[in-house]
């Protein structure tokens, strides 16, 4: 390219390359007017400390926000849904600001009162990327606050989802239960020490008795409060006729408690220390396993993508209206870059609709007056007016969510841990029965102590501990490599995958990396500059790609520039008339089928050549696919047409299934079809068009360019550049099962030792008290170190893959 000689200058505000047209101000360079504007605002208000805390902390401002975008915030009804609290002086509101990323953001936002005097206090929750704002509504308005945030580069993200009732965000009950269990366990251990050493003759009988009652008292909150999580899950399993791992655990907790009560009643000490300890450790495991990622959401439906309000034309004036209030036959005013919220017919203006959201097809479609546009399309051209023919909830895209397959919870997957625990429970019960019969013959008095001891010691808590700690740790290792799974069950589903289904656009191909190729007469540098100058006049993605290819060398003025939406662009440069666009537009016969989108170039009625533009495959994808195609069945579902079939075939291998022109419902049906044939399906996709398929598969992973981006409902979110590590991730998930089984076998060794004492009825509280924490802690250490070893291999792979 021609401009590689120039040194790259980074924008003072956002750090991006300033290309050829830096904007200068006060010896600082900016990549665009937007970034400069933010700097000016901050400079005027003495807020330049923003730039001292971190270098280039801003977010790029090249995409300007429409002036009246937040007019809908003046609407009472919209305000009602957003405002949390309001009295005579104050309003409390929380905005989601996805741009928050560093301490500068934190500092600037919390100094917002210096930019808008009406703002009283801002508190940022960094991990949720939320700002809690208190303002005086006599001095400023919700719209003004949103606009000042937008002006400094933090545009609030307000979606239709904000209109729903807010669910309680965090489940804290289990943390309280853990706190109580830890408190009781620690104190019971302390009070049990005299008992452990009572053999050495330094203890006082009356005092021991008191300790026993105190232990009993301390165990009550654990038994009745902390262990509730296990009771609930065991009862839930039993109601559905399924013996899950919590059933034997609850049995063990109850037997231990009752046995201990009778021990205390007869003047002995019980096993309160073991019981509370089990509950404490198992609760830790459960909390680790249910780690949540703040700022990531696995449950987004279309409402998170749709705006909260659009302009409806009433008596000639645009009036902001919330989406649920849109009726059939309303006329909507859709601005540039806005999403069409309901199916309708264009009544005014030329539409250029980007349906990549719905179909995955990257090239925008041209529609004119009288044609139907579907909800979910984004208008790329100027303003249009649309007459709605369906309400928002009944539109083509949104009705996908109302399909029956998506409504029912497809949670029939059960972990191997539950199956293993069932066998284990039966074996333990068998041992208990055999021991009871043996003692019935020899010494009936010892039936009760020996049977209860067996049930206590053989509780599969070691298995549960091993699985929950391993799951929790594997989730953390995966999240370090930017694969965020929703829950522990997803690890197992990923490991069991037999069939991997990919979406093409946005998943296999990157959104940013476009491949441009030129075929035709050789272009002189001057011609390249002319093409670049013309392309720079248009914001169409193809024009941008060609402008980049020609080195962004737009230096000629263009006269009589004309953009015909969907066809091409034309204009006069020097004394040459240049046209770029479709074959018909340039006035030549189309060449045979090309790979990707084609742009023909004509200089003065004479065709010169053509550019092919296509989305490049993500780096590392080729190697990854070669790696997995021998181990899994592969499919590609693409919303695009078949023009890239040949290159995809080479990429995916001969046995892969390739399907093109797939609508969202086709994708969903294909997944259902695969599952009916017994395949365990891993679906990898992005965008709303894959949302149904992601939900319907055994495990759906959505690809995000960065975790700030919105991803549809799925079981996992992966950062795009990590996609090439998919085989390694699946291997780690498989290792998860091995680690659990090895830990379980080790805990069996402890159990057998314990059982040896238990069957004879001579298990002393001291042995039980030592055995239980020792086995728990060694299992935790084992699962931790083994997952770390497997995780280390992953890091090494990642390094060599990126190298």
């Amino acid at each position: 390219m021609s401009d590689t000689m120039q040194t790259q200058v980074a924008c003072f505000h956002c750090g991006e390359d300033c290309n050829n047209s830096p904007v200068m101000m006060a010896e600082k360079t900016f990549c665009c007017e937007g970034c400069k504007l933010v700097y000016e605002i901050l400079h005027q208000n003495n807020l330049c400390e923003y730039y001292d805390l971190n270098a280039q902390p801003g977010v790029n401002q090249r995409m300007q926000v429409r002036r009246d975008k937040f007019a809908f915030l003046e609407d009472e009804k919209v305000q009602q849904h957003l405002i949390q609290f309001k009295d005579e002086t104050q309003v409390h509101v929380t905005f989601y600001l996805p741009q928050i990323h560093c301490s500068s953001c934190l500092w600037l936002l919390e100094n917002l009162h210096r930019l808008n005097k009406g703002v009283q206090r801002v508190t940022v929750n960094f991990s949720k990327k939320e700002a809690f704002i208190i303002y005086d509504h006599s001095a400023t308005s919700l719209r003004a606050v949103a606009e000042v945030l937008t002006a400094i580069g933090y545009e609030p993200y307000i979606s239709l989802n904000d209109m729903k009732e807010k669910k309680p965000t965090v489940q804290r009950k289990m943390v309280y239960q853990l706190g109580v269990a830890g408190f009781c366990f620690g104190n019971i251990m302390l009070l049990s020490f005299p008992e452990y050493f009572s053999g050495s003759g330094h203890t006082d009988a009356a005092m021991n008795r008191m300790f026993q009652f105190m232990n009993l008292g301390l165990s009550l909150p654990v038994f009745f409060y902390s262990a509730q999580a296990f009771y609930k899950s065991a009862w839930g399993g039993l109601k559905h006729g399924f013996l899950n791992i919590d059933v034997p655990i609850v049995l063990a907790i109850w037997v231990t408690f009752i046995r201990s009560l009778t021990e205390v009643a007869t003047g002995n000490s019980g096993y309160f220390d073991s019981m509370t300890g089990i509950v404490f450790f198992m609760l830790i495991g459960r909390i680790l396993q249910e780690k949540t990622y703040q700022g990531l959401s696995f449950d987004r439906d279309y409402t998170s993508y749709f705006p909260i309000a659009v302009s409806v034309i009433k008596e000639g004036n645009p009036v902001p209206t919330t989406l649920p209030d849109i009726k059939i036959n309303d006329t909507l005013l859709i601005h540039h870059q806005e999403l069409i919220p309901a199916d309708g017919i264009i009544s005014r203006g030329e539409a250029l609709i980007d349906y990549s959201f719905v179909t995955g097809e990257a090239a925008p479609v041209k529609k004119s007056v009288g044609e139907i546009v579907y909800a979910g399309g984004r208008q790329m051209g100027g303003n249009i007016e649309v007459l709605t023919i369906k309400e928002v909830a009944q539109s083509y895209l949104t009705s996908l969510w109302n399909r029956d397959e998506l409504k029912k919870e497809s949670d029939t997957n059960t972990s191997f841990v539950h199956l293993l625990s069932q066998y284990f429970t039966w074996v333990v019960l068998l041992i208990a029965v055999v021991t009871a019969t043996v003692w019935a013959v020899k010494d009936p008095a010892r039936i009760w102590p020996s049977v209860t001891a067996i049930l206590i010691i053989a509780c599969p808590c070691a298995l549960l501990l091993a699985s929950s700690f391993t799951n929790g740790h594997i989730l953390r290792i995966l999240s370090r490599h930017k694969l965020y799974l929703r829950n522990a069950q997803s690890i197992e589903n990923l490991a069991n995958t037999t069939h991997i289904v990919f979406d093409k656009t946005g998943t296999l191909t990157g959104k940013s990396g476009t491949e441009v190729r030129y075929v035709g007469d050789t272009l002189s540098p001057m011609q390249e500059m002319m093409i670049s100058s013309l392309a720079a006049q248009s914001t169409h993605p193809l024009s941008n790609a060609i402008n980049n290819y020609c080195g962004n060398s737009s230096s000629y003025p263009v006269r009589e520039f004309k953009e015909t939406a969907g066809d091409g662009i034309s204009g006069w440069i020097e004394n040459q008339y240049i046209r770029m666009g479709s074959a018909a537009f340039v006035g030549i016969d189309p060449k045979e089928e090309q790979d990707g989108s084609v742009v023909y170039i004509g200089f003065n009625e004479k065709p010169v050549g053509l550019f092919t533009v296509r989305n490049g495959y993500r780096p590392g994808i080729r190697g990854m696919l070669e790696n997995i195609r021998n181990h899994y069945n592969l499919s590609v579902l693409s919303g695009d047409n078949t023009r890239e079939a040949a290159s995809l075939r080479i990429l995916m291998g001969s046995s892969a299934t390739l399907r093109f022109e797939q609508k969202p419902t086709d994708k969903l049906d294909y997944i259902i079809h695969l599952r009916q044939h017994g395949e365990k399906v891993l679906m990898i996709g992005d965008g709303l068009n894959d949302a149904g398929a992601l939900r319907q598969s055994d495990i759906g992973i959505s690809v995000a360019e960065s975790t700030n981006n919105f991803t549809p409902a799925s079981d996992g979110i992966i950062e795009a550049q990590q996609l090439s590590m998919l085989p390694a991730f699946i291997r780690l998930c498989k290792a998860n099962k091995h680690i659990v089984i090895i830990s379980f076998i080790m805990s069996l060794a402890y159990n057998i030792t314990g059982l040896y004492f238990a069957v004879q009825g001579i298990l002393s509280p001291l042995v039980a008290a030592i055995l239980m924490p020792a086995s728990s802690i060694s299992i935790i250490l084992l699962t931790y170190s083994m997952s770390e070893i497997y995780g280390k291999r992953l890091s090494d792979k990642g390094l060599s893959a990126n190298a």
Partner: protein
Amino acid sequence: MGVIILLLGASLTVALGFLAAFIWSVKHGQFEDDFSPAHRILFEDKTTNNND
């Protein structure tokens, strides 16, 4: 004997205090955001009239 009961009572009270503090801190969201409080304390309060 008596002194041990007194000590036990004292230690349990202290431990209960910690339990209450833990529950209070969870309830008030002190474990929700581990970034902002740690950085907020490092920001200096510069006087508003210094330029740049």
